[in-house]
């Protein structure tokens, strides 16, 4: 059984097993160190919700009342969305929670980079459409 390897007290030659288990959880990249938080009251969740609702309300009010010129309005709405996404990844999705290194941060960073290239690249290349059609 695979699982026995990680429960050294159940087998013989326990010292070897402990060494293996500790290496599995070693933190070689400090940025990816895991982080957990626990409180008697879900402050993080409430903070995340209030912040999300506030950012969303600002975006809606800006558009409903047309409070800025169109170009800067779109820019501000997108920036608000990016800020809100960052807060939700950190607060609701516990991005830094992990056993051993939080590899998901690296994987998600790669995915985010691909997403940014695909979307921003498409928008950028379409700016030249009026030049050729």
């Amino acid at each position, binding site marked *: 059984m*695979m699982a026995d390897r*990680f429960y*050294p007290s159940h087998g013989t030659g326990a010292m070897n097993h*402990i060494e293996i*288990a*500790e290496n*599995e*959880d*070693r*933190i*070689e990249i*400090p940025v990816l*160190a895991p982080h*957990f938080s626990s409180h008697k009251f*879900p402050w993080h*969740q409430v903070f*995340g*919700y209030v912040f*999300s*609702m506030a950012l*969303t309300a600002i*975006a*809606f009010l800006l*558009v*409903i009342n*047309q409070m800025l010129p*169109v*170009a800067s*309005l*779109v820019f501000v*709405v*997108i920036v*608000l*969305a990016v800020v*809100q*996404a960052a807060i*939700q*990844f950190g*607060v*609701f*999705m516990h991005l830094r*929670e*992990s*056993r051993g290194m939080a*590899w*998901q941060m690296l*994987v*998600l960073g*790669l*995915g*985010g980079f*691909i*997403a*940014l290239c*695909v*979307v921003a*690249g*498409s*928008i950028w290349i*379409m700016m030249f459409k009026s030049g050729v059609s």
Partner: protein
Amino acid sequence: MSQTLSKLAREQELPLEFADYHESIKITGFWIFLTTDLVLFSCLFATFAVMRYDYANGPTPLHLFHMTPLIVETALLLTSSFTCSLAIYQSRRQNKNGALSWLILTILLGMGFVGTEVHEFVSYVNSGATWHQSGFLSAFFTLVGTHGSHVTFGIFWALTLVAQLVQRGITPRTSRKLYTFALYWHFLDIVWVFIFSFVYLSNMTGGKMV
């Protein structure tokens, strides 16, 4: 830098879903799935960005979109994300009934979201704005519809979790399943933030950008 904690000491302070080695690997695997889903949505967003002014004499966003259903959908989904995070909070405190209540509330809010969205889509189709009409509408229905079908799938997934929590209580396995469901649900909420910002609000400003 290398920090090595005693394995047993660490397992005692880890939440159930991480204390079990195999369950913790499944969580990392689920993050990798979510990343592929992120790339999928980015392709649909890019398609929408390219097609969003191709109205083909059909309706434009200003004709089509209304604030009321958009505000209702956004409020429902944001709140469901919050209640879902509270379900995880309660499962970490070994409070089965608390986790179940917040999960069921999450499901109800999700159903409200899907219901409002279906109603919105039906009203578009009834006014002649089908996805055959224009490039803008094809891209719109594909992007927002893919998100909506993800939410619908999430509702059925959550219903199976309710049954498992009732039967088995909070174990390393059920808490991991609840945790991955929460990751999925919050991720869909983040996708929705970009949908209401980039698809709806940005195109309801009355001007043309780029």
